[in-house]
Each structure stands twice: as C-alpha cells, then as structure tokens.
C-alpha cells in the first residue's frame, strides 16, 4: 500500500513539472500553430539561470524565478519578433524545422560556452526528503510543485479574467473573428510566445534543484512534453495540466507495477489509445 501511495505521490510531483512545461508549449501552439522544438532549450536556459543565481549571485534558485521569468519573457519577444515571425507564413512544417535548427544552435552554443560538465544544484536544506506518513517527498520537488500550482493559478486568472488573456483565448479559437472584434492579433502572437517561453524558463528554474544541468537536457524533457500537450489537446491549458499529471502518474505506476524498461512504452501506448478514442486529445479545442 505504501508503495502504491508513494508511486502516486512521486508521479504527481514529477507530472506537475511536465505540466508546467507543457502549458507553455500548448499556449504557443494554440494561438500560433507553432510547434516549438526550441521550447526545451528555454527550460534549459531556466535551469542554467537558477544555477548562476546560486553560484554567483548567492540567491536561492527558487527566489531567482522572480528575475528569470521577466528576462525569459523578453527573450521570447525577441525570438518571435526577429526570428519566427518571418517563418510562420512558410507553414507549420517549416516552422517546426526552423525551431529545430534554433534548438541545435542554442544547445550547442551553451555547450561551447559552459562546457559539457554536468552540474547540479545542491541546496543545504534539501538533502534529505520530507517524510509525511512515511512517504518520501523530496523538498525541492515539493517546493517546485507548490510554486508550479501558484504560477498555473496565476496563468488561469490571467487568461480568464484579464482583457489580454481573453484576447489570447479568442485568437486561439478563431483568429479572424478576433481580429474583426478589434484584437491586435499580431500583438497577441508576440505576447503569447513570450508567455510560453517565460513559463518554460520558469519550469526550468523550478526543476533545476531536482535534476541536473546539461545543454541538451531540454530536448529529453520536451519530447515527453509534446506527448502531454497532444494528449491533453493542443491549445488547451487544462489539457496540458491533466496530461502532465496523468503521464507522471502512469509512468510511475507503470514502472513500479509493470516493468521499468517498458515504462516509457506504457506512456506511449496510453497516449495512442487516448488519441484513438478522442482524436483531438482529452480536452481538445479548436481545429486540428
């Protein structure tokens, strides 16, 4: 029984971070139909940001998120305005490949500059996990989970309660109608991309103490996150969250109760099954 509960708890904790990366990805796709292969590199950027904060600025990585989210937002604006905007008209496939090239570029630039040495963030208060009711809960992961919830709630409030947020959702559902209603579609695209980038970077900052730093770590993560956003329905924020948590739990239970080597396969099989019955994903919205 303890094993079962432990699996679920671990799955939810890990899944929450997948979800946060996924939300950024899905928001970008929903509004702009861009599949951003460089999303993982934004996560990596956040991780290195956290590392820099604690190593050189002596600031706790979780606090440093206040610094890195705005910076990532600006970087997102820059990338969209100067790089991606010209590519989008060329079609979804070309945009995807373009971001793949961008990803290679960024990851290898970081490799050249930071070298490939693996780094981790060691927090003094985080060496041993909490053990509520005998279930091991690693401290950095617990803090990440909490902050991820806060950020997601904030995002939800933004999308539902503010004008800009509603404009973004409108553009995601029907860009032409939104434009007719006076929404500056172009501005929404920039904001959305920057927002997605900032979310990815934030997820990276939160993940850093629980994982390890390496220039290509983003790529491994983002492959999973593509699965999540498609599972949850491209463009749907609740979908990405549900998908992330679901995948986290499925992988965890699958590893413990079915088989460790096949645990990724289990995730993919569930993914395919869901899509067969709900081709637009669990919470699929908009056109496919």
């Amino acid at each position: 029984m303890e094993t079962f509960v432990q699996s679920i708890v671990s799955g939810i904790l890990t899944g929450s971070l997948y979800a946060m990366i996924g939300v950024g990805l899905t928001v970008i796709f929903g509004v702009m139909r861009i599949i951003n292969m460089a999303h993982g590199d934004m996560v990596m950027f956040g991780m290195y940001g956290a590392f820099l904060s604690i190593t050189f600025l002596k600031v706790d990585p979780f606090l440093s998120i206040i610094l890195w989210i705005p910076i990532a937002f600006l970087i997102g604006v820059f990338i969209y305005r100067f790089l991606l905007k010209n590519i989008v008209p060329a079609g979804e496939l070309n945009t995807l490949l373009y971001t793949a090239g961008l990803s290679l570029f960024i990851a290898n630039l970081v490799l050249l500059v930071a070298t490939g040495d693996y780094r981790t963030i060691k927090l003094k208060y985080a060496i041993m996990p909490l053990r509520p009711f005998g279930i091991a809960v690693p401290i950095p992961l617990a803090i990440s989970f909490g902050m991820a919830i806060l950020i997601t709630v904030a995002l939800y409030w933004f999308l539902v309660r503010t004008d800009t947020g509603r404009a973004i959702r409108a553009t995601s559902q029907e860009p032409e109608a939104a434009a007719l209603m006076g929404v500056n579609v172009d501005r929404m695209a920039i904001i959305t991309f920057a927002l997605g980038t900032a979310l990815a970077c934030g997820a990276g900052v939160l993940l850093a103490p629980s994982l390890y730093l390496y220039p290509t770590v983003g790529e491994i993560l983002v492959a999973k996150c593509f699965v999540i956003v498609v599972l949850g329905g491209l463009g749907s924020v609740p979908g990405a969250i549900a998908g992330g948590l679901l995948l986290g739990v499925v992988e965890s239970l699958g590893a413990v109760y079915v088989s460790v080597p096949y645990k990724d396969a289990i995730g993919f099989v569930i993914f395919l099954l869901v899509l067969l019955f709900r081709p637009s994903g669990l919470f699929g919205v908009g056109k496919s």
Partner: protein
Amino acid sequence: MRKSLVFVMAVLFLTLMVIPSFAQDTLKIGAPQPMTGPDAPFGSKFKKAYDLALEEINGKGGVQGKKIEVIIEDHQAKNPLAATVTEKLITQYKVLALTGGRASGQAVEIASVAQRLKTPYVVDHPSADIITSKGFEWVYRNNPTGSIYPQAFNKFISDVSGAMPKSAAVAYDNTVFGKTIANSAMVFLKSKNVPIVNDEAYPVNTLDFKPLMTKVKGQNPDFLLMVAVSTTDAILLTRQAKEMGVAPRAFVGFGGGFGVADIATELGPLSENVFSSAAWSGNPNDPATKAFYKKFYDKYNFYPKEHEVEGYAVIYILADALKRAKLTGKLEEDREAIRQALLTTDMTTVFGKVKFGNYAGPLGDKYTNQNIYSPEHSVLAQWRGGKLLNVYPKSNAEIDVVFPDPSVKR
C-alpha cells in the same frame, strides 16, 4: 548570373572531392571521440589525457625521431558517424593506428571498420565484450571488459566474512555496457545462491528514478547494485535511492558514471561509503601513479580518474609499439608492423601492466588481444570524504573499508 554561380559552386565542390590529401611528417594516431552530444564531457576528458601524454612523449624527442600526433574526430555518439570518421581517419588522414571510441556502440563500429581496413585499433575505454571476442586480429584492448568489471566486488564479498549479500537489487542501464556488467554480476551472485530481488533495466539518461527506487525499497534488498555508464544516471540513482529510503548494507556502483569526480562534488555527503567497482587499479602507493596525479592536476586543475588514466596509458602503449615497429613510410606495411609490435607488447603503464593475449572471459567469451592482466585491474574503491579510495584487495588499498554502511538507517 544565378545559373553560372550554381555551376561554379558545383565545380568547386567536385574538385574538392577529386584532389588528394597531403600528409605531414608526424606519426598520426586517430581517435574518434564524442565531442558534442550527451557524451561530450568524456570526449573532453580523453582529449586532455591524450594531450598530456603527447606533451611528455614529444617533449622527450618523440618516437624514432618524429613527433606523435593524435587526431580527434567527433562522432557525436552516433554509430554511423563513428564509421564515417573512422573511414576518414584511416583513408584521408592515413593514420597509423586508432584508439578511443568512448561508448561501446561506437567502438564496435570502429572495430569493425578497423578490422576490415587493416588498421590497428587499441581500445582504451569501451568495455563491450563483443569488441575483443569476435576474433578481430587488428583490435587490441588495454582496459577490462564489461564482464570483468565486477570481479573485485565478487572477490570482496567472497573473501570478507559476512560480506556475502543475503539478497541483491540490481539496477542497470539498458546499454550493452550496463547489460554486460549487470549480467556478469548477477551470474556470480546466482552461483553463490544470492536471491536477486530486483532486476531493473532502465533507459540510459533517465530523468527520474523514483519509481524504480520505490519498487526496490518494497523488496528491502541487502545490497543495492547500480550500473551506470552515464554520470547523471549514477548521480540520480544514488540520490533518489537514498531519498526513497532504500536501506541496504552497501550501495555498490559499477561503471564510468560512478568513478568520476562529479559523484562527490554533486552528491556531497550522499556519496559517502558508496562503493565503485572500477576498472582501474592504479596503485596509490606507486610513485609513478602519484607523479601522474600531480602532473595532471598541475596542468588541468582536477584529479584524473578512470577515463583520463586510460587515455593517457593508451598513448604510451601506442608509442611503445611505434618505437619497436620498423616504419618504412609505406602505409600498409607500417600498419602491419605496428600490429606485430603490439602482439609482443610487455610493459607497465600508469594504468597497470599490459600484455595482449587470447583467453576466456568470466562469461565464457573467447577474447583475442585482450590485456591478460585485466582481471587484476578490477579494484573495489569507496567514496570517502569526497575522494575515491581503493579499499580491496588489501595490496592496493589506500584506506580501510567501511562496511556495512553506517550512514544508512535500517
């Protein structure tokens, strides 16, 4: 205008393909290594090791009056690229011999090409048994094979009273490296009637071991054996095993991932008392080893471990063969001469004694040109106070072993 531009570029390209390459007057050794991609840190380690060895050898005048040069090519940890760069090194750069490879998958490809193109390949680190068990007469290996790695650990649990595990959980990466070592360890344990309560293969470069460790904890194993070729896997395995509360009498690590300095720097106190059944028996009391340690540290500011030592040693082995070979300047004859010289190699390097021979491995594979001293090279070390120190066998020990692990609450 545009058409002629395209035409010119096409002609330029074709010309490049047709012009032969020129050779310079150095003794060239080729070394495919991963310089980008997930294995990049290791490529960089080997490069540093080769550079140090070259500095020393060339500083003393080189071999037969010529300087030795190591040409490194990036294979990005991809097998087809390993084949491509090996072809390039052999036919374009016209190297006299090859070394390197780093990961077993790429090394098998390199060995296959070297064997077919009749170029000597002295393996420094890759450990898949298959590389020296296919009867390739052009392939030699200095370091132990994967199935030999656990031998020091096997000796320890057999010789020391009370050390035989009452049960064992084994987690290993799903690569040829991980599988070979885990298999070898499990075969031995089964022969001693030790129940294997967990046999978990995990995908290499996994991000999350919590489910695996949850499963292991459920079985409450007496010993936890972890195999990791990747440093990050080694770090996360250990950290998450402890986080999940796995409480064995010993944490035993096998593989490159457990023998690198990062284990101590990244895990801090969590690394204390973790065993590493390693491939290097560098006798710490040997003055040559101590001198090498110091030289390396002075040049690069960190202490060498298994990979650096292997890279350094292999250059010396090749230099020794080059010295004894009659080099006439004719490429095919020179490569054959080097191969003959390697057959009669009998020397000592910082890594240990070297002599290539044919014999049967612990799982029954027939090795060709495998270092006959390999079984002795396996040594059991333990992370203590941030340092990896040999603890068994006693002749190589730098410090007394700590067992059972007192830091684990049972």
